């Protein structure tokens, strides 16, 4: 187990390094000039050169990279080109927002999706199953931005006009400051993210459970006289959840890098919003920071998924 984790961590570092190189190279290949943008359109060439020098952009690319790498090893991602704050500070401020959004949504979609999947799989072909399948299709084909806007229109705007202010129209309150306000601000974003994913999870759970319920060992459990409830949950669902856990790891890992659309619609100051901002302003240090963090989350999620896989299935030995 320890060897497995160690090996995977070394591998993860390699991946992260490759990602950092790729982002760095892309940035220099792209046709743009941050110094000119910062200095403004009316700046003299001297001013632009000065800005460029201050940002270190006049040094050879390799030197810039080594400088960046040196900082990275000390946990220093440099300073934002724009508000001169350390990138780590900028990112650290936004992690709680994205974390709250992602984990809350994951809990909702997991509960909804798995429950719907189990209900459908226990009665395949019935009206209930077909109804769930139809809902799944609807959920899968609704883009999150549309759903988010719909929620805002109905549950914020219309309710607000009616004099009811249950849900705020956007923004974020830290959990430590005001737990109720935190939940109030997040409930619509959570639902927005959860609906689409719940559909995926319902379909995944249904397919997987149906397959497992056809397995020989489920027949054995029935032949033993085990109650149908126990057959479905102990024997069926436990085995059926393996692909669900895999999917969950990947989804959470991806979303932790920033739920761009949902954060934008609800004006949540999370990593996704920061990513969009830094890309529009060509803020290289911030972009690299976010991309590295997103990659880190995905790599970690994969390690967690593999370890969880071994916990779920005794046949899997980590080596």
């Amino acid at each position, binding site marked *: 187990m320890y060897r497995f984790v160690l090996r995977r961590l070394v591998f993860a570092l390699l991946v992260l390094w490759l990602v950092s190189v790729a982002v760095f190279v892309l940035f220099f290949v792209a046709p743009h000039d941050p110094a000119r943008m910062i200095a403004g359109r009316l700046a003299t060439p001297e001013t632009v050169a000065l800005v460029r020098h201050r940002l270190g952009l006049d040094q050879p690319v390799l030197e810039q990279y080594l400088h960046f790498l040196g900082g990275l090893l000390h946990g220093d991602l440099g300073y934002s080109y724009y508000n001169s704050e350390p990138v780590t500070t900028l990112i650290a401020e936004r992690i709680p927002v994205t974390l709250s959004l992602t984990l809350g949504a994951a809990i909702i979609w997991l509960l909804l999706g798995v429950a719907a999947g189990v209900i459908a799989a226990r009665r395949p072909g019935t009206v209930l199953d077909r109804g769930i399948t139809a809902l799944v299709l609807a959920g899968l084909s609704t883009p999150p931005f549309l759903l988010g806007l719909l929620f805002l229109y109905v549950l914020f705007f219309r309710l607000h006009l009616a004099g009811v202010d249950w849900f705020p129209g956007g923004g974020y309150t830290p959990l430590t400051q005001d737990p109720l306000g935190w939940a109030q601000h997040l409930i619509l974003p959570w639902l927005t993210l959860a609906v689409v994913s719940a559909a995926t999870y319902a379909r995944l759970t249904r397919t997987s459970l149906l397959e497992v319920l056809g397995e020989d060992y489920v027949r*054995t459990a029935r032949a033993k*006289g085990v109650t149908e409830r126990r057959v479905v949950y102990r024997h069926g669902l436990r085995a059926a959840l393996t692909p669900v856990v895999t999917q969950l790891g990947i989804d959470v890992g991806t979303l932790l890098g920033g739920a761009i659309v949902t954060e934008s619609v609800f004006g949540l100051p999370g990593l996704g919003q920061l990513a969009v901002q830094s890309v529009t302003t060509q803020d290289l240090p911030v972009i690299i920071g976010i991309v590295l963090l997103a990659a880190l989350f995905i790599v970690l999620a994969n390690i967690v998924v593999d370890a969880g896989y071994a916990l779920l299935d005794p046949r899997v030995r980590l080596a």
Partner: protein
Amino acid sequence: MSLLELADLAVSFPSPDGAVHALRGVSLTLDPGRTLGVVGESGSGKSTAALAILGLNRGARVSGRIGFDGQDLLSLGEDRLREVRGSQIGMVFQDPLSSLHPYYTVGRQIAEAIRAHEDVGAKAARRRAADLLRLVGIPEPERRADDYPHEFSGGMRQRVMLAMAVALRPKLLIADEPTTALDATVQAQILELIMRLQREYGMAVLLITHDLGVVAAVADEVMVMYAGRVVESADSHTAFHRPHHPYTLGLLASLPGPRGQRLRPIPGQPPSLLRMPDGCPFQPRCDYAMHQCAATEPPLLTVTGGPAHRSACWLPSGAVGRDDGAERIRARAIGRKAS
């Protein structure tokens, strides 16, 4: 009084192409402590019959009567039937690897079977699981109870399945191809184990197999199935020495002989259970087919082979056995010269 009595049992599965008639009116009786061997090719309905007894054919339409120990299992509700499963009727399946849950230790799976029917604590159930593992001949049962199925060999896994099936001393053990997935050397050990458990517990055994050799070794009575029907039933000795139905003859002829004789496989394939041909379902593959065979399906009637010897064939009832005399009667019946 017989322990198990199937009467006119029919099982069909709905499919997009129409109903698949897996069983078409099967009747059998099995007395306590006896062994009935059910033989037939894949798709003959052997396993369907076994699963139907426990009500485990999912999505099937079942009719007829399944008498077991004085009650009709078909008319029992799901809860009452669940009480019979595992406690009064134990079952083992063909592939012990896929039949055991890969995520749970074997001790836990056996304990679960016990606790599904008896109000015993986890510890007591686990101790009994270890005792059962010892009973079926697994070395170091206390330790092995905590192992997972994939940590056992094929034969050991089938022993685990048997331990689970007999955990509550059932009156009937249904063994569905229990040795098919095993090595030849292990097959004999498992058969011996089944017979030993049967003796110790006084169980009746319904042994389903496509292997006539297995039946010859353990069965008191034999039932041959073809295309969802019983085509011949007799005591074991009669079935092997004085068979009446050409399909039974064909099965016997396709066994490896003692002196390196050539095997004589039965030509052709069993009919589709979706579209059964008119008349006898075996008639297209039968060496002795007559006009009558293509027109009407023969009923299961008593023949002169021995006590309770019945066969579903239009050949004269005296045409039993594999000898020249029987061959002459058959040849005369179909108007062919005996060779």
